[in-house]
C-alpha cells in the first residue's frame, strides 16, 4: 500500500520546526529517520495530515561531550551511535546497544530522537538510556523542559511529549573509571525485535563496592522499567554470585505481555536470565 496524501513541511531550523508543530498541533507528525513512521503510513495505520521533516535541521544532528555529559541531538543516527568514538569512549553501552537496532539499512536512517518518541516497548535505546539515567530535552515555542527518561514513557508507543513539542536532544552522564555496565537482548533472528532485553550501569567505590546501581528491563512489558528492588540488593556491597542471583530474581516479577511471539511468563523468565547476564558482564565474567 501507499501513504495517504499529506502536507509536507521542511523546516531549516529548530525554531521553524517548532513553529510548524505549534501551528498544526495534533494533525502533524515529525518525520526523522522514518523507520517506524513510514511503515505505519504505508500500511495506512497512520495518516498524519502534515509531516514536519526535520532531516534538514542541521543543529539537531550534533553530537558532543560537555561537562561530563554526552549530548546526542535528536537527528543523530543509530549508525553514528554505534561507531562514533566519542560515544564508545563516553558511554560504551550506547554503542553496544545501537549495534543491535534493526539492520544496517535501518541504522543508517533511524534516529535517537525518533526511537524515543516512537516508544516501542522493545526498543534498545529506551531500556539502555533508563540504565544510564539520561534526560530528554523537549522544546516548543512556549519553552523548554527536561524530562528524566523514567517519565518519558507512558505506555506502549506512548510518551509524555505534547503535540507541539519537539524532542531536541538526549543528555547522558559520561561513564567514569569505576563504571561497570552490561547489555544483552534475546531476539529470534539477527536484527529482529527483542523478546526481552536488559541493561545495567553500576558505579563502584574505591573498595570495589557498588555505590550506585541502575538495572533496566525492556521488551517484556508495556514500557521499559527499572528494577529498583534489584538495585537495592546490589547497593553497598561488592558484586557476588549470590547478590547477582538475588537481584536477577526480581526481573521475573516484571510486568509481561502475551503476544504471537511469546507468552508473558516466557518474557519474564528471559528477563531474569538477561539481568543475570548483564550483571555478570558488569563484573567481567562472561557467561
Amino acid at each position, binding site marked *: 500500500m501507499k501513504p495517504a*496524501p*499529506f502536507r*509536507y513541511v*521542511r523546516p531549516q531550523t529548530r525554531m521553524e520546526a517548532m513553529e510548524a508543530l505549534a501551528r498544526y498541533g495534533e494533525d502533524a507528525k515529525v518525520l526523522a529517520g522514518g523507520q517506524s513512521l*513510514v*511503515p505505519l503510513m504505508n500500511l495506512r495505520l497512520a495518516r498524519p495530515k502534515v509531516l514536519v*521533516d526535520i532531516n534538514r535541521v542541521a543543529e539537531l544532528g550534533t553530537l558532543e561531550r560537555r561537562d561530563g555529559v554526552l549530548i546526542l541531538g535528536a537527528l543523530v543516527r543509530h549508525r553514528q551511535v554505534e561507531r562514533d568514538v566519542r560515544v564508545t569512549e563516553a558511554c560504551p553501552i550506547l554503542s553496544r546497544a545501537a549495534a543491535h537496532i534493526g539492520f*544496517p539499512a*535501518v541504522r543508517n*536512517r533511524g534516529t535517537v530522537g525518533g526511537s524515543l518518541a516512537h516508544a516501542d516497548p522493545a526498543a534498545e535505546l529506551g531500556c539502555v538510556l533508563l540504565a544510564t539515567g539520561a534526560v530528554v530535552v523537549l522544546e516548543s515555542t512556549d519553552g523548554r523542559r527536561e524530562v528524566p527518561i523514567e517519565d518519558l514513557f507512558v505506555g506502549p508507543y506512548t510518551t509524555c511529549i505534547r503535540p507541539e513539542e519537539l524532542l531536541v536532544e538526549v543528555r547522558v552522564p559520561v561513564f567514569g573509571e569505576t563504571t561497570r555496565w552490561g547489555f544483552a537482548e534475546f531476539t529470534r533472528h539477527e536484527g529482529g525485535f527483542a523478546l526481552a532485553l536488559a541493561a545495567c550501569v553500576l558505579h563502584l567505590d574505591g573498595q570495589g563496592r557498588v555505590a550506585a546501581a541502575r538495572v533496566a528491563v525492556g521488551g517484556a512489558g508495556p514500557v521499559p522499567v527499572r528494577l529498583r528492588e534489584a538495585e537495592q540488593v546490589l547497593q553497598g556491597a561488592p558484586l557476588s554470585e549470590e547478590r547477582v542471583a538475588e537481584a536477577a530474581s526480581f526481573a521475573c516479577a516484571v510486568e509481561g505481555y502475551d503476544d504471537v511471539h511469546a507468552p508473558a511468563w516466557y518474557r519474564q523468565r528471559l528477563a531474569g536470565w538477561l539481568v543475570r547476564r548483564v550483571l555478570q558482564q558488569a563484573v567481567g565474567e562472561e557467561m
Partner: protein
Amino acid sequence: MDRISIALSVNGKPYQLAVEPRRLLADVLRRDLGFTGVHLGCEHGVCGACTVLLDGEVVRSCLMFAVQADGYEILTVEGLNTSGELHPVQRAFIEEFGFQCGFCTPGMILSAYRLLQEHPNPSEYEIRRALAGNLCRCTGYVDIVRSVQRAAVLLTQREAYRAP
C-alpha cells in the same frame, strides 16, 4: 496535492522532476525513472528488496519519500554495471548460484557491495549480519553467503590486477 521539485543523482546522472510528497523513493526510481532493479516486496521495511545506496550508504527506498532524496546521490543495482561488464559482485552471485527467482537479488548485491567496500575480507558472521535485513524466500542463505565470499576474492584479484 501540490508537487515539489527535486533534483537528485541516480547512478551518476542528474535528474530533475516534480513529485507528490507522498511518493516513495522506491516508486519514483521504478516508475518515473525506470530503474526497475529496485524491487518492492513488503513495502514496510522488512524485506530489503528495495535497498539502494544513498550517498554511499544502504537504505530502504520504501521507507523514504522521494522529496527527502532531494540533493542526494543514489546508486541502484543498474549503476553497478556501467561499462557493459558485470560488476565482480554480480558475477560472483552468478558463479555461486546466489539467486533463484531473483527478486531479492538486487538488494542482496547492493548490501554485499557496500559490505565489501568496508570489509574486503569479511567473516561469515559479518556477511550474515550485513545481509540480515535482506530476506530470500526461495531458499536458505548458504549460496548467497558463498557468493559474497566469492565476490571478496574476485574484488581482491581485481585490485591486485590494477596495482602498479
